């Protein structure tokens, strides 16, 4: 260690840390527009109390997409079975509320812990193999859970879903109302806390190393970092957040069914994230809003065939590229942003 320091150029030593520090910290600073956006989000439940249910759904989808963003956007793991954690959190929270105690916050913790446990258990499976293998294994885990939930009908309610969940009041004071006002505020607060957590994580050394290993795994391991350990850590974190999203859904709707584990849920959340942009903190939020609004708009025109338009949108998005699709003025230039 000493020898290398002596041979290194002397002049560069004292300058580099000082100059580098603000440069390295710059991306983690809060921008003014971020404050503005959160403020806007915070007032929506009060301005539009009649849309409480929709706001709640968007918040849950955003949290779910945020958790996928950790795994997909930052760590680069292609997962088609993210609904496994979502569903486990939902069923966990629902069963907990039904059989143990109806307090929402404790139930939320249960959902998070269950998601994290499953994530930690399955993380050794996703550090091996190719993209295809990962795709299959993540999807396989979700399918296994789906089958389990389907088969143990006396416990989970099977295809009919788990009904008769009565949630206690939030913090012992706020009852969940039918309009979903309390629910939407509850979900938004959880989303905000999760956002702060994820924001802290992605700007920490762990987050930076995740982006590094997404881009070049070999080099990161050559730097002496444990690739598998870091992947396992972020996978567990993502799973825990997905569990939280599932728990929120079960608690605020008072219902959990096989639908929470279904394949389309994994596909939906991925679509939402991709619309918003993966590998970007706000991607999940923006994507969730865009996805839900698109969904509502299209299904108000054609209820049954809205998947066609979502499919078309995905195909266009991939063929044209996200950068270009949202910048119409580059459409007719050759060799623009691609």
């Amino acid at each position, binding site marked *: 260690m000493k020898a290398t320091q002596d041979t290194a150029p002397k002049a560069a030593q004292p300058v580099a840390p000082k100059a580098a520090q603000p440069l390295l910290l710059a991306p983690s600073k809060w921008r003014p527009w971020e404050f503005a956006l959160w403020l806007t989000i915070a007032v929506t439940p009060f301005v539009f109390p009649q849309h409480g249910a929709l706001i709640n759904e968007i918040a849950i989808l955003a949290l779910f997409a945020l958790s996928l963003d950790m795994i997909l956007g930052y760590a680069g793991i292609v997962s088609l079975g993210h609904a496994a954690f979502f569903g486990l959190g939902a069923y966990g929270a629902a069963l907990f509320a039904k059989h143990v105690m109806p307090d929402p916050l404790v139930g939320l913790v249960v959902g998070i812990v269950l998601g994290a446990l499953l994530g930690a258990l399955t993380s050794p499976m996703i550090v091996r*193999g190719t993209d295809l293998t990962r795709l*299959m294994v993540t999807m*396989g885990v979700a399918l296994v859970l789906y089958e389990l939930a389907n088969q143990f009908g006396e416990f989970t309610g099977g295809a009919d879903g788990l009904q008769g969940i009565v949630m206690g009041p939030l913090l012992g004071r706020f009852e969940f109302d039918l309009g979903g006002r309390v629910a939407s505020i509850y979900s938004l607060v959880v989303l905000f806390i999760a956002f702060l957590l994820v924001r802290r994580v992605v700007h920490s050394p762990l987050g930076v190393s995740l982006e590094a290993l997404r881009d070049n795994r070999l080099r990161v391991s050559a730097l002496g970092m444990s690739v598998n350990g870091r992947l396992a850590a972020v996978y567990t974190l993502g799973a825990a957040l997905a569990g939280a999203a599932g728990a929120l859904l079960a608690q605020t709707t008072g219902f959990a069914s096989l639908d929470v584990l279904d394949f389309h849920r994994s*596909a939906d959340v991925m679509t939402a994230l991709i619309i918003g942009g993966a590998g970007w903190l706000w991607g999940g939020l923006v994507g969730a809003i865009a996805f839900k609004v698109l969904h509502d708009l299209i299904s108000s025109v054609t209820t049954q065939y809205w*998947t*066609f338009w979502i*499919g078309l949108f995905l195909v266009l998005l991939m063929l044209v590229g996200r950068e270009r699709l949202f910048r119409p003025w580059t459409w007719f230039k050759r060799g623009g942003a691609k």
Partner: protein
Amino acid sequence: MLTLLFDGIAYGMLLFVLSLGLAVTMGLMNFINLAHGAFAMAGGYVLVVLMQRHGWPFLACLPAAFVVTALLGAAFERTLYRPMYKRPHLDQVLFSIGLTFMAVAAVDYVMGSQQVNVQTPEFLRGRIELGSGDWTLGMGRYRLFIVVVCVALALGLQAILAYTRFGSRLRAAVDDPRVAAGLGIPVDRVFLLTFAFGSGLAGLGGALGVDVLGLDPSFPFKFMVYFLIVCAVGGTSSITGPLVAALVLGLADVFGKYYLPKLGGFIVYVLMIAILLWRPQGLFSRGAHK
């Protein structure tokens, strides 16, 4: 017992024909095509439409299903798939999921969402019984027909791959497209032909499977997992790999559903995860060169 074994084999062979095209495109272009099931569904609907609305005989519909889906595949390859080859896997997955969504909704719109049935011709109905007691082998004629067709196809494909000029070009292009192109092999055309052929096979499989697997607009999503399992487990560098994987999958599914009906598809998925943990590159891959 033997009957189950036979059913499992028939099911496995059907899966093999359905997923072979996917295995080849995946191995050849390194492209994860989740829309493969949509081509199989197209084949199935071609058969249904021709038989029910135009009164074609069953045996004439099978080649028609093959040709129509192959043309469809070729058109899609040319226009939509080609720009996606060089993209990251995530983009390919989303692109093909999008295509599948569109196909499902479009078929739902045109054909209706209910399951459709076909009348198999007279000579393919009924069963043949061999042996007696515990060792009775009951073969449904239709399943026997499937096995015969699929074995013939597998042998024919193996022969094409091993002995023809196209086969050696294809193998060269799979191993290293750049060197193959450098040697003057028209890799683009090989890709196009292979993609069309693979889609055609899927269409044929879908047409054959209407009676066994059932056909409704959700077909691509229902069986997508099975196709992918065959490819992931069997590896994508040979015909034997997917064949063995498809047979194992078919047998496991039929036996699992018979002896442990409560667990349903559970066994298949656990088996897949276990195999993939043991051999992440698939059972029969030639090492991780990609």
